[in-house]
């Protein structure tokens, strides 16, 4: 596809369940980011991938959150034992490279997670 694709677009889960969120970046983009956006809040950085490695996991809120990227392409964000405070929109973005030179981020439309 032409853009960043995220699935599912909406996910409702019960507290305590595990969820997996998927991101398909733009082909050839080596940098991949996960952000979280709560209602009325800004974008909160979660994790950054360069290729398959994650040099910066500093934004993951707790050890219930993990992410991986395979083949330098698809990434999965996993939240274990979900809590109500995990409810938010999870956004994935990719970029040709993370060169600190201002390469723009290309965002997907996010997964809206609701924990009941």
């Amino acid at each position: 596809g032409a853009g960043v694709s995220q699935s599912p677009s909406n996910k409702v889960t019960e507290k305590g369940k595990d969820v997996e969120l998927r991101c398909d970046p733009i082909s050839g983009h080596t940098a991949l980011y996960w952000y979280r956006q709560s209602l009325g809040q800004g974008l909160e950085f979660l994790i950054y991938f360069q290729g398959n490695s994650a040099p910066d996991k500093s934004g993951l809120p707790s050890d219930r959150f993990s992410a991986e990227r395979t083949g330098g392409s698809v990434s999965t964000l996993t939240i274990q034992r979900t809590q109500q405070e995990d409810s938010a929109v999870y956004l994935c973005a990719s970029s040709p490279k993370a060169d600190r030179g201002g390469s723009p981020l290309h965002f997907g439309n996010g997964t809206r997670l609701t924990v009941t």
Partner: protein
Amino acid sequence: SQKIEQNSEALNIQEGKTATLTCNYTNYSPAYLQWYRQDPGRGPVFLLLIRENEKEKRKERLKVTFDTTLKQSLFHITASQPADSATYLCATWSSGTYKYIFGTGTRLKVLA
């Protein structure tokens, strides 16, 4: 800590007027600032980048300025249209890290 701040209050303006949005940064001297547009239910879309050595950058009806003395970037939309209604975010690279930091965004509503 490095911080980007935008006016969180919504900005309502009349169609045809110029909208001006503000992005301030503290504890930081970014090499550039980016501006994004976000519509409800969608991810942000990149609009413009301005570097610290550029005073002004234009793209169609959009104009961005960068004042390193005031530590501020202004984003202007001239001849605004109802279709310009959205939330506008500024962002920059966080020094010493691998992440972009974003402001909370300003919601613009252009009234017909």
